[in-house]
């Protein structure tokens, strides 16, 4: 159970090398297989997540959520996907066509790329980058451009407003996000995500870095454009923000990407603060799934409880509260580390 997936990968590499491929090419093929697996994971996750989101919102709102197709409405998302696939792909005439058409594609590509460094189990990482965390943050920052493309390409004021908001919000929340993670990095002494997981063998970083966790969680909500920070979409104000003009599968791709991001960010949260794949009894890949899903449930819970924050409050909250707090946490962590070293506890 524990090493199913790593064993399969090893077997694949061995088989390929047995066929006469060099080690580098075998790794390359393995990489492609891993990517395909990730795409599969993403798709399955999104299908589950959309169902889960609707169920959670339903339960919170005293409703049943989807309950028609399959047991507890489990096939609802699949039906929706089929519906969206068969819908007409409307491209309004005065849009910037190439930008309009490619924006959702780039968005989904960028979100899938995030998975490359997430340790999905013991040794289950596509690339065990020595600057894995930086990779995550920098690739995550690219989704800003995709939203901007969507907003600009749509040639619609609502879309543009949504995109502008998205950019302002994501750029300003990226900073506290990164800084709050730095505290963890300082304790773990590495940007490599597998190192950070291993460093939490004794104690989860959420206990050592509670402030960092809270700031990370808030900033991540904003990064994900989820309620109460769902400025770019903001259906009550901007109708659908950057996605206003999108229809059918292109629209669905945005949602696919958003949920993909949600999984990635939650998995990172689990990795950084909740000991990643470490846990007793169950196999490592199951632990990370459990932790990720629990974190995602909290995200959903928050979204369906809170009203949307106002744009200027959002910005001032980021710059005036979140950033100073995360910086202070960083300084505090530094002092704490020095103190521990001085006392000889570290």
């Amino acid at each position: 159970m524990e090493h199913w997936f790593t064993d399969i990968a090893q077997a694949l590499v061995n088989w390929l090398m047995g066929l006469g491929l060099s080690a580098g090419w075998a790794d390359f093929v393995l990489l492609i297989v891993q990517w395909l697996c990730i795409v599969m994971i993403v798709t399955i996750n999104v299908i589950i997540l959309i169902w889960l989101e609707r169920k959670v919102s339903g339960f919170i709102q005293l409703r049943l959520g989807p309950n028609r197709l399959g047991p507890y409405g489990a096939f609802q998302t699949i039906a929706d996907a089929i519906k969206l696939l068969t819908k007409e792909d409307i491209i309004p005439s005065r849009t910037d066509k190439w930008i309009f058409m490619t924006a959702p594609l780039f968005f989904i590509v960028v979100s899938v790329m995030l998975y490359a460094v997430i340790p999905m189990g013991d040794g289950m990482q596509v690339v065990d980058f020595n600057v894995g965390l930086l990779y995550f943050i920098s690739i995550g920052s690219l989704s800003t451009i995709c939203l901007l493309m969507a907003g600009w390409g749509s040639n619609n004021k609502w879309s543009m407003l949504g995109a502008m908001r998205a950019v302002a919000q994501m750029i300003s929340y990226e900073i506290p996000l990164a800084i709050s993670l730095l505290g963890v990095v300082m304790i773990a002494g590495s940007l490599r995500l597998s190192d950070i997981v291993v460093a939490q063998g004794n104690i989860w970083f959420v206990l050592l870095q509670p402030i960092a966790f809270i700031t990370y969680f808030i900033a991540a909500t904003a990064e994900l454009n989820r309620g109460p920070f769902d400025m770019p979409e903001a259906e009550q104000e901007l109708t659908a923000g950057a996605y206003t003009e999108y229809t059918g599968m292109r629209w669905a791709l945005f949602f696919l990407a958003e949920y993909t991001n949600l999984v990635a960010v939650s998995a990172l949260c689990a990795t950084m603060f909740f000991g990643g794949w470490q846990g007793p009894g169950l196999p490592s890949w199951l632990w990370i799934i459990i932790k990720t899903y629990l974190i995602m449930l909290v995200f959903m819970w928050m979204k369906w409880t809170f009203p949307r924050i106002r744009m200027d409050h959002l910005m001032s909250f980021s710059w005036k509260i979140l950033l100073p707090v995360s910086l202070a946490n960083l300084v505090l962590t530094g002092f704490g580390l020095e103190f521990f070293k001085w006392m000889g506890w570290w």
Partner: protein
Amino acid sequence: MDISLADLAFIILAGFTLLTALGVVLFKNIVHSAIMLVFSFLGVAGIYFTMHAGFLGLVQILVYAGAISVLIIFAIMLVMNQDPEKTNLPSPNIPNIMAGTYLTILLVGALVGSIWFTSFPEKVAPVSGDELGLLTGLMLGDYVIPLELAALLLLVAVVGAIILARGAEHK
């Protein structure tokens, strides 16, 4: 010819970077140019990766593709008030063309010259061990003042550009 995976990756990435860079110059819509610029940055970051400079590549993505290009696109969108299809046309007046040609010659000359006159060592010794620590020492130690100055310069440049384009409010 024996092409290794690394070589293939370099060729693809270099071609990609060059094509997108050409796109920046040649597209008639300045927003398209700006987006091409993003891809060009990404291509450069890819080249860094092939050279095992992961940190540099990621910083390239984070800073250039993620932040600066957004700033550029933002600035473009904010100041644009004409048909986007005509925002990046080649300049019709002769002094501009002359200046452009002159700059191109200068730039190409400098590049060729620097490549020509540099004696490349046969084999670069790989950075041993902690490349991050080394970079940190350089950036926040020896070159901290140039780094900060460059940051300030960029900020001033963007603000100045917007003011020039729109004109300050008359009050």
